[in-house]
């Protein structure tokens, strides 16, 4: 070890024994002095004289002690500690400045990090699979007519296509996966309580092909697919929540749709399936039992394994290492061109080709467009806030340190070292940014989770550390540059110069003022954009909340029921009729009905093609007569609280044997019958095979969502219709609907202990959820607007207050020369109003451009909504006035005599 290193080690060691070393050295000095004095006494001096001479000979003990202490240990830590303490003292001395800076950083940087992280996760993140660059989702532009398609139109393929691609395309792997149902969930039971869990039916090569390992046990093998083995792999999260990570979970039984499955593995942490936003709890190999038909479809309609024109499988591929994406795609396309017609019909030469494409194995395959757009808008807003925040912090720092120029000069004059002052300012900036960073991280954690749950991404979402560090470093550099600039100014002028120079002299820096003005104008412009955006979105929210639904969702409990043991149409009808009867007997229940598509959930059956009394409906081509439909139960409209305008509601008398009844809405009646008096007319499909008698006309009301425009609708009865494998029960009860839930659970479990209630909630909540995205979006926008306002206010206040403080002398002279208080106040206010006006002029065109971009997210609002603009401008002006009120008041209170004497 070098001498230098040895010295450093010794010093470091001494750091922990300061006090002991001090007293030891004192003792050593004491002994030395005594011995020296004795020596002098022996040489003939008096005791007093000897002691004095000894002291003289020894030197200054205090100085020596100090020197010893300094060289005994390293001063580095002591200095840093002193700087930190000094910095903290400085920051606590200006609490408003500190709090504003830290909060500004926290909100600006935190919000930025959160939104970016979610956006990154949604748009960029790859699946956590091995060598994701060779794994692709398979998409198609279409399918031959004659195909029965289920699922998303561009990702569904048939079983024959899957087999053909596996066997002929030369791809390394072709993996198939099918959701358990449209919601992705299926009833499962771990202990005694039935519940729902999300799962996929997958091919045997799924885990191997993706290169996804297991925490425990094994993934699937080919044999699992071939034999349709009743085994399951559960997700790490499900393992944690349902089995508390117990290692003997392997071999246990998980009941899925009442069928016992043996758990053979736990997927590796972080892998939650290939279903995008929906994270999965379990996987099972492709099954052949009727209750495991693809997407939970009724087995009556044909099983996915045998019905060759049933396109319902989602596919992923892994290309061979060495084969380019284009080559692999071309070969796959060639196989697909033939395979697409297997079991459908003969391929004709003039058939169009349906183009396949490989999509990157991003975490989110089928991106929800509106969602991505909302995120991008948010990102833009956050970016603006961040810009405002950054410029604010910089301006505050500049103003603060510039006003400390005198302090620096004094300290320099008193002999402070330049390095020390530099270090101190540096420490202050670092402290500020560090505090802001900590707060920002805390904020980002919360905000990321909030955004994640908004986006319904449960998939291991974390704030992105890189972004946070990046923004913080940029801020740090800014803080450094602008925080230290005044120090440089103070140093380049000789201290006496700065000390002597008066406020009037330092005011003369017009260039600096112009830069400050430009920053403020830009800030106000950005603030205006944010406020207009927030105004438009909040207006949209108001419209959404105030839109009449045409029904009374309050007091309605809704839950889905999926009978496990009803396999035929007759069985399921009997089941639901009996269920309705049973539920009606629960004390306190006012009425019970059922619906295939839950109103407000966004689901709907859309059809076209209808004849009225055997003729074209009101002169419209039957094929063009489109309408939405829902399959419901008796008492439906009474239960939902929808007004019946003509005729009657469905009743128990509309049994399977009774004539088929249908109820239409106003729009349907007016559009396709030309009159509201539609009762008694007969509707039939163009082939004329089925005919229904219109028994009632109901008032238009919202079906799929709040934003839905009124459109033709008709309702039929499940008791008189085809197979239904799942219905939503609507129950009208007095008081809180959720209070009825335990009773309902008990009744249902008496019918079938394995049958969970699917997504039980109040009907009001269904509608609330349907606009949850817009609500959160609008609230966030509102928050950003308020944030921007607060930031602008603090920035403006800080800058103005600083400027006034530099102009005290000037104002004093003005007043001494006869200026009135009101004139002084006006001078200040006029300044900030001018800045504000400039900001508005700059901001309005920007806001108009931004409003255009927002148009698709608006409901019942125009992008050029005058009220939003007026409010935004008024808001900005008001803030500018308020922020300048205090400095203006201070300026008005300048006493000419004392202001002049100060110089």
């Amino acid at each position, binding site marked *: 070890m070098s*001498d230098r290193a*040895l*010295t450093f080690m*010794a*010093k470091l060691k001494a750091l922990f024994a300061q006090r002991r070393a001090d007293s*030891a*050295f004192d*003792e*050593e*000095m004491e*002994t*030395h002095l*005594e*011995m*020296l004095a*004795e*020596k002098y006494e022996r040489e003939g001096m008096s005791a007093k004289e000897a002691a004095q001479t000894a002291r003289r*000979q*020894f*030197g*200054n*003990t205090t100085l*020596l002690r100090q*020197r*010893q202490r300094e*060289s*005994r240990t390293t001063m580095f830590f002591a200095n840093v500690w002193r700087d930190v303490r000094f910095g903290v003292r400085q920051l606590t001395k200006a609490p408003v400045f500190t709090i504003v800076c830290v909060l500004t950083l926290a909100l600006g940087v935190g919000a930025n990090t959160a939104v970016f992280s979610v956006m990154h996760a949604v748009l960029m993140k790859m699946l956590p699979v091995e060598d994701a660059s060779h794994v692709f989702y398979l998409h198609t532009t279409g399918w031959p007519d004659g195909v029965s398609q289920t699922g998303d139109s561009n990702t569904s393929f048939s079983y024959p296509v899957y087999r053909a691609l596996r066997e002929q395309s030369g791809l390394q792997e072709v993996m198939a996966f099918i959701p358990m149902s449209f919601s992705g969930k299926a009833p499962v039971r771990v202990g005694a309580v039935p519940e729902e869990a999300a799962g996929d039916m997958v091919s045997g090569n799924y885990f191997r092909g993706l290169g996804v390992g297991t925490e425990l046990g094994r993934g699937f093998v080919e044999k699992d697919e071939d034999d349709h083995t009743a085994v399951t792999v559960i997700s790490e999260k499900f393992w944690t929540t349902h089995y508390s990570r117990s290692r003997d979970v392997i071999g246990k039984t998980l009941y899925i749709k009442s069928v016992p499955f043996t758990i053979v593995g736990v997927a590796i942490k972080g892998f939650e399936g290939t279903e995008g936003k929906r994270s999965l709890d379990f996987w099972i190999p492709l099954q052949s039992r009727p209750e495991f038909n693809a997407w939970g479809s009724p087995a009556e309609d044909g099983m996915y394994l045998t019905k060759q024109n049933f396109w319902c499988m989602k596919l992923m591929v892994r290309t061979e290492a060495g084969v380019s994406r284009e080559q692999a795609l071309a070969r796959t396309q060639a196989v697909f061109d033939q395979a697409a017609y297997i079991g459908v019909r003969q391929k004709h030469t003039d058939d169009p080709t349906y183009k396949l494409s490989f999509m990157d194995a991003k975490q989110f395959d089928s991106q929800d467009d509106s969602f991505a757009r909302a995120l991008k808008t948010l990102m833009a807003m956050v970016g603006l806030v961040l810009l405002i925040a950054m410029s604010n912090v910089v301006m505050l720092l500049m103003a603060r340190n510039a006003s400390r120029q005198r302090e620096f000069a004094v300290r320099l004059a008193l002999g402070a070292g330049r390095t020390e002052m530099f270090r101190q300012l540096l420490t202050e900036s670092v402290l500020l940014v560090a505090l802001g960073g900590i707060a920002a991280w805390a904020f980002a954690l919360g905000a990321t989770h909030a955004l994640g749950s908004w986006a319904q991404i449960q998939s291991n979402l974390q704030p992105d550390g890189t972004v946070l560090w990046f923004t913080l470093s940029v801020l740090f550099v800014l803080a450094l540059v602008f925080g230290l600039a005044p120090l440089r100014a103070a140093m380049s002028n000789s201290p006496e110069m700065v000390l002597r120079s008066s406020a009037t002299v330092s005011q003369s820096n017009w260039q600096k003022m112009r830069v400050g003005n430009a920053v403020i104008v830009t800030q106000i412009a950005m603030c205006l954009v944010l406020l207009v955006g927030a105004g438009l979105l909040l207006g949209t929210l108001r419209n959404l909340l105030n839109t009449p639904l045409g029904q009374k969702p309050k007091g309605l409990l809704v839950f889905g029921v999926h009978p496990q043991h009803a396999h035929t149409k007759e069985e399921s009808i009997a089941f639901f009729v009996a269920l309705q009867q049973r539920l009606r007997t629960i004390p306190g229940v006012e009425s019970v009905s059922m619906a295939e598509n839950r109103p407000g959930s966004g689901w709907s059956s859309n059809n076209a093609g209808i004849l009225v009394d055997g003729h074209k409906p009101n002169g419209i081509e039957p094929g063009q007569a489109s309408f939405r439909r829902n399959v419901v139960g008796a008492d439906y409209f009474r239960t939902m609280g929808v007004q019946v305008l003509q005729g009657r509601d469905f009743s128990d008398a509309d049994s399977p044997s009774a004539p088929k009844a249908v109820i239409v809405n106003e729009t349907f009646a007016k559009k396709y019958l030309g009159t509201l008096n539609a009762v008694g007319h007969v509707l039939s499909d163009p082939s004329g095979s089925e005919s229904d008698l219109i028994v009632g006309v109901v008032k238009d009301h919202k079906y799929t969502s709040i934003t839905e425009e009124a459109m033709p609708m008709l309702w039929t009865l499940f008791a008189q219709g085809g197979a239904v494998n799942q219905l939503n029960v609507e129950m009208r009860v007095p008081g809180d609907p959720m209070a009825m839930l335990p009773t309902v659970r008990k009744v249902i479990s008496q019918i079938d202990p394995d049958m969970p209630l699917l997504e039980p909630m109040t009907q009001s909540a269904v509608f609330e959820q349907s606009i949850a995205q817009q609500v959160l979006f609008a609230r966030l926008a509102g928050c950003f607007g308020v944030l921007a306002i607060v930031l602008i206010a603090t920035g403006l206040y800080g800058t103005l207050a600083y400027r006034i403080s530099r102009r005290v002398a000037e104002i004093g002279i003005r007043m001494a020369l006869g200026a009135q208080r009101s004139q002084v106040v006006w001078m200040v206010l006029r300044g900030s109003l001018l800045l504000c006006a400039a900001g508005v002029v700059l901001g309005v065109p920007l806001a108009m451009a931004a409003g255009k971009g927002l148009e698709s997210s608006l409901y019942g609002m125009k992008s050029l909504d005058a009220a939003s603009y007026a409010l935004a401008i008024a808001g900005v002006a008001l803030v500018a006035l308020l922020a300048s009120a205090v400095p203006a008041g201070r300026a008005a209170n300048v006493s000419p005599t004392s202001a002049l004497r100060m110089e």
Partner: protein
Amino acid sequence: MAADKSEVLQGTLDLMILKTLEALGPLHGFGIARRIEQLSEDVLTLNEGTVYTSLLRLQQKSWIRSEWGVSENNRRARFYSITDRGLKQLAVETENWERIAGVIGRVLALEAKA
């Protein structure tokens, strides 16, 4: 201050202390100061406190070590002794010193040429 006394040259005190410890064995600060005083025959002025600064520096470089002991007149005192590293350093520094002293001696011995 008398004109015929010299300040201790920077760095030479370390060398003197090392040499003293090598020659006399373990010694306390007072003893070291006495020895230097005695050898310098009052040519050098020395604030005896400075010895301790030097001792600390030498200790940090592990050239000397110290332990508490009892002095000849029964006082508790810290005794310093030279280490192996210190001995090596002493050899190096002695050689350096002699070389420089030699050079300076030769330079000073040059007689001005007429």
